[in-house]
């Protein structure tokens, strides 16, 4: 994925990110802000602006190449087969349109329901995501709902057409901690019920630990480690993954144990063309980290590192 801006060299924001999701499976995409998680999700949905951005490679959905699809065909898939829940429920709902319309418009568009049918269905959907008194809520406007309620409404909208793939992009980041757990629980049950494949994008390993089957850890636009959830938490091999885990509170550490932040910020990154992007912040850095970037190697537990962590202690992260 290449960003171009006139007068500047093209920026390759995301590179070589490759993964697959099967029905009923939940895949986690983890990394700090700015690592390219959200851009990846927008690229899958075909929502990146046409001008200034080039997406190369392949997004295959059930045998259909989405990148080659004409815009109107893609539109017909979006909202029906592919759905997404964005980060901020405060800004993701249209403030001047009633909640009801914002839920029913997907149903009338993709499932050809009449307005009356769509309203009944929408009330049902809101009830299923745990919104009390749904027929009243349908008439209300977003500013009359709390943040958690709005995110529930957005999830209801995303699931309205029983999509086969749902992307949840930091679905709980903007919410209160108590609400976060409820929303995650809701996502988990809904996905389990419907067999929808879920891509969960987050910076929060606690979220991943409770939900994902496979986890992809991204750094600076590339996947640096990929493993089934248990393997990753038991045996993180990439120093970045190790750092992420060390900065999250755990149950198996004594109370008051120090959390180790990762040194530096994602800005202290070198281009992949000149070596491993994480090298400037890496505790395990060796000569071989530059100038050649390592490849992603391994089948079940894949890794992009020349000097990985040895066997790390068994880790238990508080599931949310």
């Amino acid at each position: 994925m290449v960003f171009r801006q006139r007068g500047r060299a093209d920026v390759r924001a995301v590179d070589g990110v490759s993964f697959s999701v099967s029905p009923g499976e939940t895949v986690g995409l983890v990394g700090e802000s700015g690592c390219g998680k959200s851009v990846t999700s927008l690229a899958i949905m075909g929502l990146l602006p046409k001008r200034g951005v080039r997406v190369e490679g392949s997004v295959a959905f059930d045998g259909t190449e989405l990148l080659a699809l004409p815009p109107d065909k893609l539109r017909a898939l979006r909202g029906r087969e592919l759905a997404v829940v964005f980060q901020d429920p405060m800004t993701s709902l249209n403030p001047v349109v009633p909640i009801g319309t914002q839920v029913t418009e997907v149903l009338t568009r993709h499932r050809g329901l009449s307005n009356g049918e769509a309203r009944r269905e929408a009330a049902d959907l809101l009830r299923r995501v745990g919104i009390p008194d749904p027929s009243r809520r349908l008439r209300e406007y977003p500013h009359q709902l709390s943040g958690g309620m709005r995110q529930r409404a957005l999830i209801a909208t995303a699931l309205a057409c029983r999509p086969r793939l749902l992307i949840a992009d930091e679905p709980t980041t903007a919410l209160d901690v108590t609400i976060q757990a409820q929303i995650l629980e809701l996502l988990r049950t809904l996905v389990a019920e419907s067999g929808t494949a879920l891509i969960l994008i987050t910076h929060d390993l606690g979220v991943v630990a409770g939900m994902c089957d496979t986890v992809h850890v991204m750094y600076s636009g590339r996947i640096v480690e990929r493993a089934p959830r248990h393997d990753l938490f038991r045996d993180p091999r990439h120093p970045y993954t190790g750092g992420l885990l060390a900065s999250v509170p755990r149950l198996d550490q004594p109370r008051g144990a120090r959390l180790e932040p990762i040194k530096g910020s994602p800005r202290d990154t070198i281009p992949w063309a000149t070596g491993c992007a994480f090298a400037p912040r890496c505790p395990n850095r060796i000569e071989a980290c530059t100038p050649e970037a390592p490849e992603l190697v391994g089948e079940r537990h894949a890794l992009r590192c020349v000097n990985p962590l040895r066997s790390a202690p068994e880790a238990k992260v508080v599931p949310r």
Partner: protein
Amino acid sequence: MLGFVVRRLALLVPILLGLSVLLFLWVRALPGGPAEALLGERATPEAVERVKKLYGLDRPWYEQYLTWVGNVFRGDLGVSSRTQHPVVEELLRTFPATVELALTAMIFAVGVGVPVGYLAARRHGTWLDHLSVAGSLFGITIPVFFLGYMLKFAFAEKLGILPTDGRQDPLLDAEHPTGFYVLDGLVTGNPEALGDALAHLVLPGVALGTIPLAIVVRITRASVLDVLHEDYVRTAEAKGLAPATIRGRHVLRNALLPVVTIIGLQVGLLLGGAVLTETVFAFPGFGKFMADSIVARDYAVLQGFILFTAVIFVLVNLLVDVAYGLIDPRVRAA
């Protein structure tokens, strides 16, 4: 909502009262005083004395003011020294023409301005966008009377496809039961008169509507640019909605909120601009009558018309605020 309207109306009372005092004092401050203002410039001293007695101008000013306000409430704005008709009659006779003209200008400004502003924002950074920005800056600075002259020259004088002046071809057999000539053409079932009235509205409407057009283009463009970056538009895209639904329900319904506010403010501009436009096109409306009254120093007319305009202006803006509340649920709740 009703409470809101009542509160807003209550706010208007001191403004209009203050304005009436100012306008009352304005006539006292005129060169030669109110008696001469009533009689015109060539009044004899004896006539001035007689008028002073007759109108109670020898009484204290506050008494005179109360009398005047009482008259205003009874619909008496005095008599035009130029035509010798009551000012209210002249107002009612000429205002329909200006309403037609201002509506034409507004339809032109909004009808052209919103699509252009929308397209410019959609094609942000392209030649179309740059052209619309440059055009709107240019449009704001063109004097109405000069634009009117150029339009008249091009379309009436050179091309001869539109009439140069007036509201209706005098040779046409047309009746005017309402005073609104377009409406008259409809109710009397006279398509020829209707077409003629519309043709007479085109050039002055475009001239008067150009500054509002430029403003509407700017506001729409800026507002659509803001809205296009909103998360809820991305949500709408992610739902795979039809482009028309996204454009209408999700982009424009939000982006047009500031435009609605602007429309109210434009009414003032239109009423002021009407004085110039109607003069250029000899369009027999409220503005032309006012321009003629300026030349004739017909102060009773100026006083009455200015007061009337202020009332219209504040009422229209009140209406716009109410409409805004109806469109934007967040305001309605507040």
